[in-house]
């Protein structure tokens, strides 16, 4: 580096940022706060500035050519040397602007792609707040890819800005000083060609991360098809999406019938796994019984078997809806008698039911003629 060069070092950080602790909700929130279109506009600003600097450099070169053809001597040589430095500085800044524009376009393209990918992740408008959920892992992959592109963009950006300007005579007040005072507290770059930090180097802004929302104490209210509200104790909340183990037992109190009795199914004990009756609907197979009497379907008791196994049918299976007609106690006793004493009543001359309609009884008078041979 020459002694007349001035450098503005660019502080870079390409540390890998972990993304595993971000939830899908946080990443979605962060990506919604970004704007890749503005970054594309900033890249265009860089390119326009580069074009302006290139035009300035060409004008300086044209003036130097005119001057060299009309003026000779030591003073002419010094003036041409100054113009040469301005030309080289303008070209150097233009090249840095184009490199900055390329880095900005790379970052903006990656951001646009990340926003698109995040929009394609299934999950709806309320992403998961659990960083270990599958949805969050997908969001974390999107953010990790975006961070990798950011690191590449930072690498593409210039490491420093440098110019080599001649000493200026304070012939007149320059416009940059006026503009800088209007712009803000911007001071001059560090003179002397050293890479000392600038007094007006912008400070690095701290990251701002949205916190995960607190986990709701009550499950979200979702309208149910059966018209019940979520506060109904008969409604089970088995949603394990938040990683919480449901605290309420899986065994719920039995349903209340219209007469205040617990509705039990025959032999099956409780109503675990069955659908609750719709309020207001009528029993399609009403069986009148007295209060305190066992169920006409065989009674039953708690899970694990009937409490009263002495009763016929107690705790032995049960009637399942759609399994066909069920028999009352008198039918069961009569069938037992018919099946166990066939010698008393003789064999019924009835065709097997399975061949009913297809069976043709043998004809005793028919002789096939094979026995005569």
């Amino acid at each position: 580096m020459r002694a007349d060069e001035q450098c503005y070092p660019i502080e870079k950080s390409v540390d890998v940022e972990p993304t595993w602790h971000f939830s899908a909700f946080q990443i979605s929130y962060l990506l919604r706060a970004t704007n890749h279109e503005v970054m594309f506009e900033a890249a265009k600003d860089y390119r326009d500035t580069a074009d302006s600097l290139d035009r300035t450099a060409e004008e300086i070169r044209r003036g130097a050519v005119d001057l060299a053809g009309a003026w000779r001597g030591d003073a002419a040589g010094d003036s041409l040397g100054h113009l040469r430095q301005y030309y080289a500085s303008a070209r150097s800044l233009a090249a840095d602007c184009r490199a900055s524009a390329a880095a900005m376009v790379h970052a903006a393209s990656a951001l646009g792609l990340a926003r698109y990918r995040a929009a394609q992740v299934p999950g709806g408008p309320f992403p998961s707040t659990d960083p270990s959920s599958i949805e969050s892992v997908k969001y974390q992959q999107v953010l990790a890819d975006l961070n990798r592109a950011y690191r590449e963009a930072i690498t593409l950006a210039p490491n420093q800005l440098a110019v080599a300007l001649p000493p200026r005579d304070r012939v007149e007040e320059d416009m940059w000083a006026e503009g800088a005072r209007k712009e803000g507290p911007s001071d001059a770059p560090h003179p002397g060609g050293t890479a000392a930090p600038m007094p007006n180097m912008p400070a690095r802004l701290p990251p701002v991360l949205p916190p995960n929302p607190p986990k709701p104490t009550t499950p979200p209210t979702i309208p149910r098809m059966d018209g019940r509200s979520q506060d109904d104790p008969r409604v089970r909340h088995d949603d394990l999406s938040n990683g919480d183990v449901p605290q309420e037992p899986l065994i719920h109190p039995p349903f209340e019938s219209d007469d205040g009795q617990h509705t039990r199914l025959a032999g099956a004990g409780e109503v675990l796994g069955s659908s609750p009756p719709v309020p207001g609907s009528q029993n399609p197979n009403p069986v009148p019984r007295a209060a305190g009497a066992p169920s006409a379907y065989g009674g039953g008791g708690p899970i694990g078997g009937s409490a009263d196994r002495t009763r016929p049918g107690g705790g032995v299976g049960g009637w399942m809806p759609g399994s066909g007609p069920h028999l009352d106690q008198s039918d069961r006793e009569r069938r037992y008698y018919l099946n166990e004493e066939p010698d008393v009543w003789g064999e019924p001359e009835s065709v097997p039911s399975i061949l009913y309609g297809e069976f043709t009884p043998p004809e005793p008078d028919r002789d096939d003629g094979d026995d005569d041979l």
Partner: protein
Amino acid sequence: MTGAQASADGGAAGSSVPMPLDWPDGGRSGGFAVGPRVLRDVAREMRRLAADNQPAEPPGKWERRGALGAVRLLDSEPGLWASGRSFQHVHAQLREGLMAFHGALIGGLPAVAARLERSADKYEHADQTNAEAVGAAAGPLPDGTPAAPRVVGPDGRF
């Protein structure tokens, strides 16, 4: 603007700012081939360049494409997490350094123009002084004797 000043050694190889090798050189000896008018023309062109690159002022700051300070500042657009902030920080530094050096470059052009105009004034003044000196040398002496060399002999012959 107090910085952006450096030596004027003309540049050497191996620097961060490469100097053009095909730069025109009028030579170290000689003088005007056309006259000081060329210096004034070049000085006027440098002032025009400086005027065209005036710092952009709001509102409509971003509408002046390529003007000094027309690169917009990014805040939360790259992202609010650490990597987004890192890229935003790099952009902020590039923008700040670019504004400083671009401003120094544009602000130095009027100074170059002023030097060219001063040189043109010196040459014009020198020409006038020399002309007066030549005229004075060609004029009559205080005692009335013409200073011009006598080209006619005492005897009246050439």
